[in-house]
C-alpha cells in the first residue's frame, strides 16, 4: 500500500482547496511564549523532580483538600491545564524552590504520597507562611529555618545601584495575595529575560533582587539560570563558577542544568 500524494502537493487538487489548506498549514495561533515558559517553569518548580525522581507517585496521592485549594488558585491564574495534568497535585505551589530548601519539598512530597493530607497553609506563599506559621511538623520547622537564607551572594553595589534606581521591586507586603505575588514574580522574570542580552548587569541585579523579594518563589530556577547567563556575559567567571556549582548541586537534573553546564563549559 502506498501513501497518496498530499493534497497540498498534488497538482490535481482543486486550487481553492489547496489554497485553504495552505492557509491552515501556515496559520500561527496567538501564543505568548514568554508567559507559557513562566507558567511551565512554575509548574515544574512546584512539582520539582517530577520526572524520574519518584514524585509521580505523590502526584496521584495528593489530598483532595489540598488539590481543591490549589486548583482554585491555579484556575484564578489561568493554570487549569497544569492542574489537569496533575503535575502539582499534593505539592505546595509556593513551597520553597531554593536549593537550601529542597529537602522541605522532598519531605512534603513523601508525606503526601503516604496519604497524610498536607495542611492547607502549605500552599501559602513564603511571605505569608513566615508571618503566620500554621503548626508545621517538627521536621518542617527545622527545614524551614534552613531555607531562610537565599542562596545568593550579596549583590555588588556598583551593579545593583542602576537597576535599583530604574526598576526597584516593591517589597512583598504581608497582605499581598499569593496570586499577586506570583504575578509580580512572573513580571520580574520577564524583565530579566528582556534585559539579559542587552544589559546583563541590570538583568543580574534584577535577578538578585528577585531572589530576595521572592524568597521561596517558584521561578527561582529560571531566575538563577538567567543570573548565571548574565554573569557569563559580564565575564565574571569566578562568581559564575561558584553559583553555577551551587545550582547544579541543588538541581542536578533541573530544567536549566544542561544550559548551565554549557555556560560553565562542561
Amino acid at each position, binding site marked *: 500500500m502506498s*501513501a497518496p500524494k498530499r493534497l*497540498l502537493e498534488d497538482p490535481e487538487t482543486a486550487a481553492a*482547496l489547496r489554497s485553504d*489548506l495552505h*492557509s491552515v498549514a501556515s496559520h500561527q*495561533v496567538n*501564543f505568548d511564549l514568554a508567559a*507559557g515558559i513562566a507558567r511551565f517553569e512554575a509548574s515544574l518548580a512546584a512539582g520539582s523532580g517530577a520526572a*524520574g525522581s519518584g514524585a509521580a507517585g505523590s502526584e496521584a496521592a495528593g489530598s483532595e483538600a489540598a488539590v481543591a485549594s490549589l486548583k482554585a488558585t491555579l484556575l484564578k491564574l489561568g493554570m487549569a491545564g497544569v492542574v489537569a495534568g496533575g503535575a502539582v497535585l499534593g505539592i505546595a505551589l509556593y513551597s520553597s524552590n531554593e536549593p537550601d530548601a529542597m529537602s522541605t519539598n522532598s519531605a512534603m512530597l513523601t508525606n503526601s504520597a503516604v496519604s497524610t493530607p498536607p495542611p492547607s497553609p502549605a500552599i501559602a506563599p513564603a511571605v505569608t507562611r513566615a508571618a503566620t506559621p500554621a503548626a508545621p511538623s517538627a521536621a518542617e520547622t527545622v527545614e524551614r529555618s534552613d531555607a531562610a537564607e537565599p542562596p545568593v551572594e550579596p549583590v555588588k553595589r556598583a551593579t545593583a545601584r542602576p537597576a535599583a534606581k530604574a526598576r526597584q521591586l516593591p517589597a512583598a507586603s504581608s497582605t499581598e495575595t499569593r496570586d499577586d505575588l506570583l504575578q509580580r514574580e512572573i513580571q520580574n522574570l520577564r524583565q530579566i529575560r528582556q534585559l539579559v542580552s542587552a544589559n546583563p548587569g541590570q538583568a543580574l541585579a534584577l535577578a538578585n533582587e528577585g531572589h530576595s523579594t521572592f524568597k521561596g518563589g517558584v521561578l527561582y530556577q529560571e531566575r538563577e539560570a538567567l543570573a548565571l547567563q548574565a554573569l557569563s556575559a559580564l565575564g565574571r567567571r569566578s562568581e559564575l563558577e561558584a553559583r553555577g556549582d551551587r545550582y547544579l548541586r541543588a538541581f542536578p537534573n533541573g530544567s536549566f542544568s*544542561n544550559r548551565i553546564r554549557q555556560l560553565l563549559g562542561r
Partner: protein
Amino acid sequence: MAESQAHSEPLLDAGELFRRHARFVANFLWKLGIAAQEIDDLVQEVFVVAHKRGGFVEREARPTTWLAEIAVRVASTRRRSLGRAPRQVDMDDAATVPATSPGPSDIAEASQGLERVQRALDAMDLDHRAVFVLYELEGESCEQIALILDVPVGTVFSRLHTARKNFQKMHNRLLTLDKTRRTA
C-alpha cells in the same frame, strides 16, 4: 548503569524543549480542534506530560513527532472530559457545522479559507482528524503516524482515505455555500 544513564539523558532539558517547540504544539492543538481559549492550558499539559515521561531522548522520532503524540492524547482526554462525543456530521448539514475551534480573536483574523478548513475538520472525529492533520498539514509519513497513534499502519491508511474523502466533500460544500452567499 552509567551507560544506561548516558543513553537516557534527555537531549533537551524541559525548559529548552518548551522554548523550541511550544509554538508548534499550540498550532498543532489548534489544528486538532482545541478551542483558542484552551490552548495555553493544554500546551502546559503536553509539556508537563513530556517532562514526566523523562523528557525527549534521541530516538527515531523527531521531537515534534514525539510531542504530537502527547498532544493527540491530551486533546483526546480533553474531549472526553468535556463529554464531547465525536462530532458526526451529515455531509448535507455542512452549513450547520459550527466553527468551534477558533475563539473570537481567531475568527476576527481568520480568512474564509481558514474557517472553511476548520469547519470541515470539525466534522471529523479526533481519530480521523489527527491522521489528516498529521499527514496533510504536518507532513508526517503514514508509518510515523502509526507509531504516534499506536495503531497499525493499515488503520492509518484507512483513516486517511476516509478523512480525505469526507474533508474534500465537506470543503466543496462549504465553498459552494460561500459562493452562493456572495452572489445572493
